[in-house]
């Protein structure tokens, strides 16, 4: 663990900030450190974490995707109609459908990015608009409430107390985190994704097949968008066409807060998790402290700005700079 934190300075720092925040909130509000509050915090963050680890893979590969939240809404609708067509389905069918539709949408992004060599932000802004327009047009803005029972039924996975339990989305989150970690850390594909994001030209010269890398990254993002969409329905028990708009930026901010680099090559699953939690706990804390909800976004924006500007500062270098100004010497 110590080794891990040595090479993952950002995560260590984030963990320290998070710990400080938890200590502060526990002291400031009696209802913070309760099983009920923590369970609801986790349940409400699970979807963002699922999306965050999907987005992480895209960021590592040097791309960006802002279409995934809308894609998740599209998955919810298409999945609903597909499930109705097979007579309602169950969790297994739901996961297969949602995952497949999500991967298909991701593949469209990848095909556009790799095939036409357009930068990912432009492509995903376009698919964001196209998907959202399509969704609003096709649904005429109507929400769906009459959903299969299995989909909306609350399933408790771990009981934490009388009125507190971690629900199914948290289990899905854990699976998403573990499989993403496995993909990016333990497989050669994952390491090639890092290399491709870190130094695309170097990766190409070393024989990394770049087009498949794009499909894997955006396909994984699509898979997570789909699963996240499926799980979000389980929490809110309805499908609303524009419910997820704006979440892409919250998730993006959390992932970057967690140490992933826009531009590629850096980022971890743990960082994503901590990034999402930091935002969620800040928001939860403000809520418990009775701060106006109108101030939430502002405070969270400032937190992210502070964290990101500080993450660029090498604290060790800053300290030596103060003690002595001889930092110019050659290495060795």
């Amino acid at each position, binding site marked *: 663990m110590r*080794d891990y934190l040595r090479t993952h300075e950002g995560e260590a720092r984030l963990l320290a900030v998070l710990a400080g925040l938890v200590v502060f909130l526990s002291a400031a509000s009696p209802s913070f450190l309760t099983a009920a509050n923590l369970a609801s915090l986790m349940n409400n963050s699970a979807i963002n974490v699922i999306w965050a680890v999907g987005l992480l893979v895209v960021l590592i590969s040097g791309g960006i995707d802002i279409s995934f939240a809308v894609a998740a809404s599209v998955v919810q609708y298409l999945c609903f109609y597909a499930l109705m067509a097979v007579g309602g389905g169950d969790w297994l069918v739901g996961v297969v459908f949602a995952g497949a539709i999500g991967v298909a949408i991701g593949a469209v992004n990848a095909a556009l990015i790799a095939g036409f060599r357009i930068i990912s932000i432009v492509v995903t802004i376009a698919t964001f608009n196209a998907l959202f327009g399509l969704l609003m047009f096709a649904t005429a803005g109507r929400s769906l409430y009459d959903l299969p029972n299995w989909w909306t039924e609350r399933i408790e996975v771990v009981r934490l107390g009388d009125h507190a339990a971690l629900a199914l989305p948290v289990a899905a989150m854990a699976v998403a985190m573990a499989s993403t970690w496995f993909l990016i850390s333990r*497989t050669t594909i994952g390491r090639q994704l890092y290399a491709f994001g870190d*130094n695309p030209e170097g990766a190409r*010269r070393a024989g990394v097949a770049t087009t498949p890398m794009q499909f894997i990254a955006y396909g994984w993002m699509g898979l997570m968008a789909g699963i996240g969409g499926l799980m979000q329905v389980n929490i809110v028990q309805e499908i609303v066409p524009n419910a997820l708009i704006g979440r892409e930026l919250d998730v993006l901010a959390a992932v970057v807060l967690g140490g992933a680099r826009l531009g590629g090559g850096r980022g971890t699953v743990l960082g994503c998790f901590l990034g999402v939690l930091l935002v969620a706990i800040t928001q939860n804390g403000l809520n418990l402290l009775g701060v106006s909800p109108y101030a939430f976004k502002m405070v969270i924006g400032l937190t992210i700005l502070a964290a990101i500007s500080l993450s660029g500062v090498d604290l060790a270098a800053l300290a030596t700079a103060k003690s002595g*100004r001889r*930092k110019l010497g050659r*290495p060795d």
Partner: protein
Amino acid sequence: MPVAEHDESAADAAPAIRFDRVSVTFGGVRALDGVSFEVDRGEVHCLAGENGSGKSTLIKVVAGVYRPEPGAHMEYFGRPETTVTPQLARRRGVAVIWQDLALFPEMTVAENIAFDHLVGGMRLVEHGAIRKIAESALARLGVDLDLGARLNKLPIARRQLAAIARALASDAKLIFMDEPTASLTQAETDMLLDVVRTLSASGVAIVFVSHRLAEVLEVSSRATVLRDGRLVGVFEAAGLSQTRLTELMTGKQFDQRISARSFAAAPAVLSVEDLSRHGEYEGVNLALRAGEVVGLVGLIGAGRTELAHTLFGMTRPDRGAIRLNGRNIAFRNNRDAIAAGVAYVSEDRLALGLVQQQSIADNLVITRLRAISNAAGAISRAKKAAAVAKGVTDLAIKIGRPADAVSTLSGGNQQRVVLAKWLATSPKALILDCPTVGVDVGARDGIYRIIRRLAESGIAILLISDEVSEAFFNADRVLHMAAGRIVGDYDPRSVSLADLESAVYA
């Protein structure tokens, strides 16, 4: 095709590579013209030539990146090939360590070295195996690196070693090193040369490309010299002096004369006192006098460009004073500096100095848009044409039409456009950051003459150069910068080039 070459024993004795009649043409320019290139197994071979002589093109042909024109003979370890792809070249044992190293800064040292074992389809990463591969490659080099550290934590010299280890880990038997010592100190260079000798002794052939001829001659056994895309010849390093090698590369008798004159009495145009900026330069004192050319040399990373950026108002010093014509000034940005009469020609002409896609005319007038505009702010065509014509004639720029894209010009002529653009601002002080990088030898002379002429018109010039000889022959004084400090102030008339070079590259 001779059948004998497929004979096993003959193949064993064959050189590492043998290339004949290699020609490559890019858009009408003959980059290589019927060149032969042969490297023996385990040999340290020098590939020498000025910028634009075809060295990089030849490396890329051997590495399978470029395909030569039909009729070329290509042979790796006794096996002739008709078409060579990068993959095939790699399989035959050719590795190129590009100047930019092509490593992955965010990944660990072990992963970088064993990267070939990560490429390809989906497999589990065997960290243990990767570590072993990296360890054994480093053991062959006789060096020790922290395998678990992220590569970007390593100083550049050690990254270089990681790049070499990576080539070894992929079973390279012929390694090209493109300017491997460009950013190394002498101690690091010595270590690298030792590594090169170790490799050579173990049967790995090395092709060394470097502009530091002394070290090239020290380590190589033979040199292949290219000039303007043609083979000048292959020479034994033993009988070759630096001067002779330079003559072979440039095709000129070297009658470079020191042009230094004394300016102690002239008024200082731009001077700085105790100028420091944390992490970049420290306690710098210098004065550029009217009409004087001051050379500034040092290793990459010594802080020369950083100092230039401050003089040009792009960064602010932490402390110290900058004076222009005796008055203290503080530039808020480079527009202030331009207005005050400081001009800066960037070292990266391609990316920063010129807008490549735009026309020659547009590039020439970009610093003078206000002066060629009328009262309403619209650009006057007549004034623009006059300004362009003046720039083109003054600096004898060879152009087709002013409306042609600047990218159609040769390196030397592009550099003239950059100079003309800045001269149009009538600068009092001109900072030239490596003005002859990528400019071929003939055109360099023209640039040096322009520099001299500008100085004679009273402009104070700071000539930053990677090549000590360039500053030695073309400046009135040579300042040596190391680790952010000015550590030497030399008069070319009272120091020898060799002494100056050994001081700088030490």
